[in-house]
């Protein structure tokens, strides 16, 4: 992925949080992690990417942030299943929206969600991954883009 491609996902992340939450959500400066470095928070949603590009996109966030997101949307059932559901939906929506630019050959899987430490061995990753930090209120999450 080149800089322009990463910008598509950065813009998509900003769009998602501004539309879903409020304009106080901000994206930090993206940075690179290499080799087998992975990051994870309390919940993680992974989307497998296939077609003309191959790899994974994942969103990882602390449970306090996910609880707050659920409450913001008026959800009364705030439990582990729903928090896992939200991380999957965030990863799915940002990846799906990227098809507007990347086209239908940017094929996305259904989300796989993890509570706690994710089993990343089941997914394909690039040697280099871009981490897009996300800040909302007092919470910090990240979208990680690892595509060849």
């Amino acid at each position, binding site marked *: 992925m080149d800089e322009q491609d990463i910008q598509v996902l950065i813009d998509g992340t900003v769009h998602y949080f501004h539309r879903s939450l409020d304009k106080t959500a901000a994206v930090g400066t993206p940075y690179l992690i290499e080799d087998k470095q992975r990051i994870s928070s309390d919940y993680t949603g992974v989307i497998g990417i296939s077609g003309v590009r191959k790899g994974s996109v994942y969103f990882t966030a602390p449970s306090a942030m996910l609880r707050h997101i659920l409450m913001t949307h008026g*959800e009364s059932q705030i439990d582990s299943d729903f928090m896992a559901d939200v991380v999957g939906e965030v990863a799915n929506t940002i990846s*799906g929206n990227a*098809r507007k630019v990347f086209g239908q050959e940017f094929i996305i899987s259904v989300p796989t969600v993890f509570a706690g430490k994710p089993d990343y061995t089941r997914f394909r990753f690039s040697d280099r991954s871009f981490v897009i930090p996300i800040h909302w209120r007092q919470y910090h999450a990240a979208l990680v883009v690892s595509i060849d």
Partner: protein
Amino acid sequence: MKLLVVDDSHFIRNRISRAVAVHKIDSVITAPNGMEALRLFQKEEPDLVTMDITMPGLDGIACTSAMVRLNPKVLILVVSAVADKATAIRALKQGANGFLLKPFSDEEINDSLTELLRGGGHG
């Protein structure tokens, strides 16, 4: 009128169910995947459907096509994150009546359903 909400995300199913404030809709039922959606579609005979595309098993486009074959008058609003034009066209060709991109606001889902009811179905 009866609305069937089809989405593999429980969070989204609840969001749409809570948001719906179109006065003609008096009943909302939900399905977490395409197969369950088809079962409920035949049993409950909804007038309106909101349909996700990316779901495990039977995806939203195949499910739309099957529903339109069963009832050509059903109104189907695709509500999906998949943003490319080709997918939207494919859904419309299979019989969907409208397309709403995720993420959406409560107002947008209601506006889209109202528009769908105004526009009518396949006849």
